[in-house]
């Protein structure tokens, strides 16, 4: 299989994906979106049925990883230009990327370390509130708000992590649920967090003295502020993906997996569980905090509704749908669960029902998720699967 041919297949697949996404987002009426959705599902089953195309694709991803990732990034960069006249779609794409960041963070606990965490939505809220409060009450800039949110969500990561050390699956899930409710209720009822009114007028971030709320003109086309914000969030997502993949492919990721698969044999090989579980929560919470900041400054308003328990469930569904312990999978899960319901706005009432049904179907028929995790491969070692 010549290297060139492989690359071509990979590029073709990515082009196909981009085309599907653009068409899906462009058309407005209900029937056409169902048609495109069906086409996408059809292609997915075609690939999943282990035809020769799938092996080639798998090999392409393996051999030409760097090039394909670069092309994928390029495509995402040009994606918003399809929707220059429709900020609403860009707003949805930004939400998808923000939730992707929080989902990658949640995957440290659920995917790598095997701990169910129902408080990731609350962490997102804590990050958002920290930055919102810093910016509105102390008039601090977005960037200092971001740093503040990272520190605060890291601290809360420890606070959430400590009680989970001694607990097992179902007890641990209850600890996180309790944390989520207590966090939600306290923020709802405290004066200085603006209580139920939430916090409004959160400023748009400024880049070298240039605010992202206004549009700028480059070579004739006026690029709306929203698109600049899209690139800010995209930059954050890319950086955090690099951080996440480095963590997962280093000793930390390996040890997390050991703690997930068998705590007892981990202990007998010198692995102390406490620091690793805490690290898993701290990194996850910091990712959620960053996502929260980007969310607050996008919508310009934050209230307890955007950290309600339904957000916690949504993030868990994203990790399961996408594929546990697989960054690419989790991101795809996040994007799907933001874009699809947004398009099917007309069947609003069924949205939550759809989430729950897809979650159960995934758990029964494909627990490993859309893009299952792959075994770690070392460059210098050859061996078959």
């Amino acid at each position, binding site marked *: 299989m010549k290297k060139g041919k492989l690359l071509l297949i990979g590029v073709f697949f990515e082009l196909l994906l981009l085309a599907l996404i653009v068409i899906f987002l462009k058309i407005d009426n209900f029937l056409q979106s169902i048609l495109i959705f069906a086409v996408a599902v059809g292609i997915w089953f075609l690939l999943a049925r282990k035809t020769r195309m799938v092996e080639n694709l798998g090999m392409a991803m393996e051999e030409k990883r760097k090039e394909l990732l670069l092309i994928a990034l390029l495509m995402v960069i040009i994606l918003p230009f399809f929707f220059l*006249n429709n900020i609403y779609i860009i707003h949805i794409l930004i939400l998808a990327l923000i939730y992707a960041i929080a989902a990658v963070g949640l995957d440290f606990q659920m995917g790598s370390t095997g701990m169910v965490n129902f408080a990731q939505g609350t962490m997102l809220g804590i990050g958002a509130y920290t930055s919102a409060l810093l910016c509105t009450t102390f008039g601090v800039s977005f960037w200092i708000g971001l740093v503040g949110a990272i520190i605060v969500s890291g601290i809360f990561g420890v606070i959430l992590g400590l009680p989970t050390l001694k607990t097992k699956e179902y007890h641990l899930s209850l600890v996180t649920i309790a944390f989520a409710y207590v966090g939600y209720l306290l923020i709802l009822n405290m004066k200085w967090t603006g209580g*139920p009114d939430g916090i409004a007028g959160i400023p748009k971030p400024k880049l070298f003295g240039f605010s992202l709320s206004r549009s700028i003109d480059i070579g004739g086309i006026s690029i709306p502020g929203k698109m600049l914000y899209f690139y800010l969030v995209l930059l954050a997502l890319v950086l955090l993906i690099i951080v996440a993949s480095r963590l997962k492919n280093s000793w930390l990721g390996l040890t997390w997996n050991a703690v997930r698969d068998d705590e007892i044999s981990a202990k007998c090989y010198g692995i102390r569980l406490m620091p690793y579980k805490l690290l898993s929560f701290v990194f996850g919470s910091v990712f959620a905090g960053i996502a929260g900041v980007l969310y607050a400054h996008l919508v*310009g308003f934050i209230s307890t509704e*955007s950290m309600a328990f339904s957000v916690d469930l949504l993030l868990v569904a994203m990790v399961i749908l996408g594929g546990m312990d697989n960054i690419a999978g989790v991101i795809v899960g996040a994007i799907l669960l933001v874009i699809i319901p947004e398009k099917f706005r007309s069947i609003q009432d069924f949205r939550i029902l759809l989430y729950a049904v897809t979650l159960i179907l995934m758990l029964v028929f494909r627990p490993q998720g859309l893009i299952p995790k792959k075994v770690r491969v070392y460059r210098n070692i050859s061996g078959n699967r």
Partner: protein
Amino acid sequence: MKRRGFVMFLVVFLLTFSLLAFAGGQKEKVVKIAFIGPLTGPNAAQGMGARNSFELAIRQANASGEFPYKIEMLALDDASDPAVGANAANKAVSDPQVVAAAGHWNSPVARATIPIFHENGVALVIWGAIGVDLTDKYGKMYPEITRVCPKLDAENEFLADWLLTKQGYKTFYIIHDTSSYGKDCLTFMKIGIEKRGGKILGIDGVNVGEKDFMPLLTKVKEKNPQVLYYGGVVTEAALLRVQIVKAGLTNMLYTGISGLADQKFNEVAGSAAEGTVIVKPGDPKEVKGWPAFVKAYKDAKFNEPMGAYGQYAYDAAGVILAALKKVGPDRKKLVSAIRNIKYKGLLGTYTFDDTGQTTLVSMTLLVSQDGKWVKWEDSEYASGKRKLPR
């Protein structure tokens, strides 16, 4: 051979992709007005009633033939959630055909969308959110924002005046839910009571969705106030009323404002609802267009009742349509036209002050009699046949 098949497939694919992407040319001239409200979620009942009334106004405008173009309503759901509201607002302003918008029953949602409408220079007429800061703070800053329904404090002022000055009640207990609506109710009722020398024996908050009020009511029983004021919406208000009767607090007046003004309260609370006194904005009886509106709504066979805010949505549409008739479908011109409009609507003539708040303030006092909200003046309580608890 394989390579050629591959290339051919790629070409065909790109063709279909471009075709689909740019389908749908320009239809005949359509002007859209966006309606945003809670079509799902906890306040879906109030949202649907308002949407139907808004649509009724649009249909009547199209039928009247006074507009050289077709007017369409773009109904969007905010599900009482600021984030969903922000999405909907973005969708409305990014559709070039939308010239103006009417929105929101929940104040937090309005706070999230107001900056979006201001940034894009699109007029927003608030039909149901009664948070005071929406006009006092935002209305003053942004010319795009106006409101057709009275502010929350106007309702509480009217109720406090009736309770203390007219009926002479002295001791009060306030229970409110922890939503922003409940919090505002607490703030302004407290001012209304204390301004008139009333004594507040206790204040307690409850979460939306709470169902166990017994601990609170036992505390209230000990304090024994003359009046229990509830700041919140129908479900919890009805639940609380049922448990008040169960806790044996029968010689205590139960009162609230427009959050309770829904037939659902009487249905749910059943016999316990008897003797509840509330305040509702607007005074339909005196306006001659009211029966025609009620008949038109019934003929349109909407499957949801009009609700407490149908009248305001209808008038909000009226204001926008009147401005549209004057200046035509141009966003910027509409903003100033609406703000300086003088429009004879269902509930009286609308003019907006410098904060965009309607100057029209008319209130109705209602009392629950035999499972129905009856105007105080026509009720047997006023005529003395029945006694309010003293």
